[in-house]
């Protein structure tokens, strides 16, 4: 059963990766930049969740909901900052997010100290054993929450008017504007969704791994990778990319050992990229 187990573990992990990337992808769509502070937003959500858990006894799902709503508020300062950047080039906005990442990292270090924290949750230890495979409730919860949020996001983007307008804005803001879509409001909505999804991922992350103010950058790298691989404005693409990523990671470790894990992952990614010739930012000038 070990292989089946690794496969299932990879799938569960991958669904959570998809959620990790969802906020990043939407932010990328409306702000046209990699948000290098994405990992730090997730951590802010995690610390909010840890606080809710410690003071009110909130479980990870409640904490994720509250942290998500709280972090959605980041849309306003984010949009204000974005609009101050003129001329807005890809590179300048990118640098802005790096500055934010450093700022948030150090503010968290001052407020929460560098200690490692975990979101404790008694039911995380419960185990199911279908088919002789062990499945931890903690991991399944994170995976299910990831899958659920991705599904909701997918339905929102595909089936609702504001969702379709948001998607159009992501694809080509100027054309969307010409079609009468309120681009500014869509940008605000996108940033709120991006922040909210990052915030919601936080408390779930804190049930999967230790968190500390400095563990953000690797999360950003995962989100960035999946966004490019899975595409912007498509939640199903993210879910698929996340699950593939999780399964490859899991099988490589189980079969070849953990030493080459990153090499396989990024090697596979390099090959995957070979098929993509044009950029998401076609027609935009890089500075």
């Amino acid at each position, binding site marked *: 059963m070990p292989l089946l187990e690794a496969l299932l573990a990879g799938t569960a992990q991958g669904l959570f990766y998809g959620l990790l990337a969802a906020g990043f992808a939407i932010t990328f769509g409306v702000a046209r930049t*990699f948000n290098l502070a994405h990992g730090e937003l997730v951590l802010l959500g995690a610390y909010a969740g840890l606080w809710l858990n410690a003071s009110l006894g909130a479980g990870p799902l409640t904490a994720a909901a509250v942290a998500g709503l709280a972090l959605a508020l980041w849309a306003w300062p984010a949009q204000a900052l974005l609009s101050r950047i003129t001329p807005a080039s890809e*590179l*300048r906005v990118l*640098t802005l997010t790096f500055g934010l990442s450093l700022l948030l990292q150090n503010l968290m270090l001052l407020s929460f100290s560098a200690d490692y924290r975990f979101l404790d949750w008694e039911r995380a230890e419960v185990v199911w054993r279908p088919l002789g495979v062990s499945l931890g409730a903690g991991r399944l919860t994170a995976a299910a929450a990831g899958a659920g949020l991705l599904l909701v996001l997918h339905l929102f983007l595909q089936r609702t008017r504001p969702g379709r307008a948001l998607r159009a804005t992501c694809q080509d803001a100027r054309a969307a504007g010409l079609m009468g879509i309120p681009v500014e409001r869509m940008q605000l909505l996108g940033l709120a969704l991006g922040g909210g999804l990052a915030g919601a991922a936080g408390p779930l992350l804190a049930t999967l791994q230790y968190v500390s103010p400095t563990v953000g950058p690797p999360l950003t790298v995962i989100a960035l990778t999946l966004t490019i691989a899975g595409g912007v404005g498509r939640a199903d693409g993210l879910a698929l990319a996340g699950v593939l990523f999780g399964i490859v990671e899991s099988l490589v470790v189980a079969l070849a050992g953990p*030493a080459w894990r990153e*090499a396989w992952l990024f090697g596979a990614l*390099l090959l995957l*990229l070979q098929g993509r010739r044009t950029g998401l930012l076609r027609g935009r000038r890089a500075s």
Partner: protein
Amino acid sequence: MRGGWALFGCALAASALPWSPYHRSLLTTGLLLALLTASWHLLALGGRLSFGHAAFFGVGAYASALLASRAGLSVWVALLGGALAAAAAAIPVGALSLHLRGPYFSLATLAAAEVLRILAANWTSLTGGTWGLVGLPPLPPQGALVGAGGIGALLLVHTLLARSRWGVALAAIRQQQERAEALGVPSRPLLFATLLTSAAFAGLSGAAYAHHVRSLEPATAFSLLFSILPLIMALFGGTSSPAGPLLGAGVLYFLDELLLQPRFPAGHQLLYAGAILLVLLGLPEGLVGIARRRGGGRGAS
């Protein structure tokens, strides 16, 4: 361009001055970061924003460290070996990434740097693996000259670009690759040549770094930071001329080391981040923007 040469003059003069060992050490690191930033900027001229210059930095560092410590070459020769090795590493990296555009290119370079890091960690017989290398031969006292010299050579490349069709073609590729190709610009070979040059300079920077800090491990040599810092420093200085990245790297590094670190050991990174945000929001063209009077600015090099 003139600003760039003036900065090079400053760097060269500074390298020759009798600084205290501490200030000499700072100057060396500062100039190496400036060289790395400038090498990144060269590639950006072709519209390719690399997220993986740590790959070339790390390969240069490892190659030079191994040439000097295992093969017993003099450090000066090893440094050149590091630059060449980085250029050689750029061949497969370029083959897998240069046909990509925008974020796809950025991600491909990031992935390449990660693959090379893991390779360095697992190819134990060559690199010493995860044990890393310690006690590397030191950079000679004139080590700051490596940074300054590299910057000078890179500026020569820029001059060459400005005077030849290479520069015009790169600008055309950056602005509209399809149109440039339709007009007969051979974009692949040009970008390849630019990438190899850029990688060689990044490799030189990494090579000198290895002998400057005298120990190396895969996680530090291929650190994500060496991919991101050049980008930040270039933008801080301004990307419209070769002077900008040099200025940005120098000012950000010395600001942190000389003013922020000693006075605010706990909060210096907050102030560092603040400085980045301030310049970004206040100076649309980066630091070089201060130097330009309105209307007096020249176009991109």
